[in-house]
């Protein structure tokens, strides 16, 4: 197990004393196989107990620990030192207000996630003896990749449209809306269009594609959004041609989750 000396430049912001963020430098003796999060924990335990950052699982699944490492947002628990130079700069996710140090304010995302109705709007209860829906391999594959989102928000950190447009629902929320739209058990697409196909939904996305490039879980939100654009456009023109057509789970229908 080799040791390696790393210079960690961490963006600090202490709201009670700082007027703006500043970088603080720590010299950290690291093990070869460490990740950036290990180095931060070393700092917290041995050098500076006042450094704040979020983490929990240390296995790239809880989504707490995303931060900008040398310019790119990534999960710090999966940012291996072996892939990084000796000087590592760590910042909080961009496009979010900084609460303190590497901790950002997530209220906006949480509200947007709720707004896209990320839950099954069922057509009717399944009529099977065990009370479950049947799903073919293809039906599962249609939505599963979009269900892999860990809400780490790396995608929001690189999406310029999220930075420029306050209202924009953003890549992960829209990918999750698409995840339910694409689920064979769901009939809520119409109900979701309220937000998804509004002026703060998919139409704010200009297909920069950066979201999909940085996503640690290969969710491909850019794809989800473009597919939703096509579906919504088709819906729009169908509605124009056939006004008042009956739609399953349309806006009038309550999105009850009782099952």
């Amino acid at each position, binding site marked *: 197990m080799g040791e390696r000396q790393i210079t960690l430049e961490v963006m600090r912001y202490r709201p009670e004393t700082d007027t703006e963020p500043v970088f603080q430098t720590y010299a950290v003796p690291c093990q070869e196989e460490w990740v950036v999060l290990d180095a931060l924990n070393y700092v917290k335990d041995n050098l500076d107990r006042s450094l704040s950052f979020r983490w929990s699982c240390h296995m790239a699944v809880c989504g707490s620990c995303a931060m900008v490492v040398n310019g790119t947002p990534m999960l710090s628990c999966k940012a291996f030192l072996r892939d990084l130079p000796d000087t590592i700069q760590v910042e909080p996710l961009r496009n979010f207000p900084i609460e303190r140090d590497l901790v950002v304010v997530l209220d906006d995302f949480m509200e947007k996630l709720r707004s896209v109705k990320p839950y099954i709007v069922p057509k009717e209860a399944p009529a099977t003896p065990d009370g479950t829906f049947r799903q073919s391999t293809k039906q599962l594959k249609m939505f599963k990749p979009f269900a892999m989102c860990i809400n780490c928000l790396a995608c929001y950190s690189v999406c*310029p449209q999220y930075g420029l447009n306050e209202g924009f629902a953003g890549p992960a929320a829209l990918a999750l809306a698409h995840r339910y739209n694409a689920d064979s058990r769901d009939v809520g697409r119409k109900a979701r269009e*309220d937000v998804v*196909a509004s*002026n*703060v939904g998919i*139409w704010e996305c200009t297909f920069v594609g950066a979201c999909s490039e940085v996503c640690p879980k290969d969710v491909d939100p850019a794809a989800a959004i473009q597919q939703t654009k096509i579906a919504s*456009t088709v819906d729009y*023109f169908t509605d124009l041609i056939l006004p008042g057509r009956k739609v399953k789970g349309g806006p009038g229908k309550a999105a009850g989750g009782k099952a």
Partner: protein
Amino acid sequence: MARSNKPIVWGLFAGGGTVTAFLSPVLVLVLGLAVPFGLYSAEDLSYDRVMAVIGNPLGALVLFGFITLALWHAAHRTRTTVHDLGIHNDAMTAKVCYGLAALGTLAAAVALVQVAF
């Protein structure tokens, strides 16, 4: 929240993007570069031969469609790019961009009606 009317302009943008992606480079080549590069003789693009195609109402309609889609594609993308560049008066931008596209569409219509009808 109201459903957006963007599908209209976005539909034109997407359609235009696709059509221009397939056709623009070859049209640039045919009209502007093929003769100077010696791919065609000047005869190939003589007035009569061009009239035979564009003078035909169907030909004129196709060209009109292409020009329109190209313009609306460009107008919509310009609108978002202007926003990206930091000019955030989107309503104004939209008016100007789509206005210009409409003007261009009208001009193309006028010219092509004269050619073909």
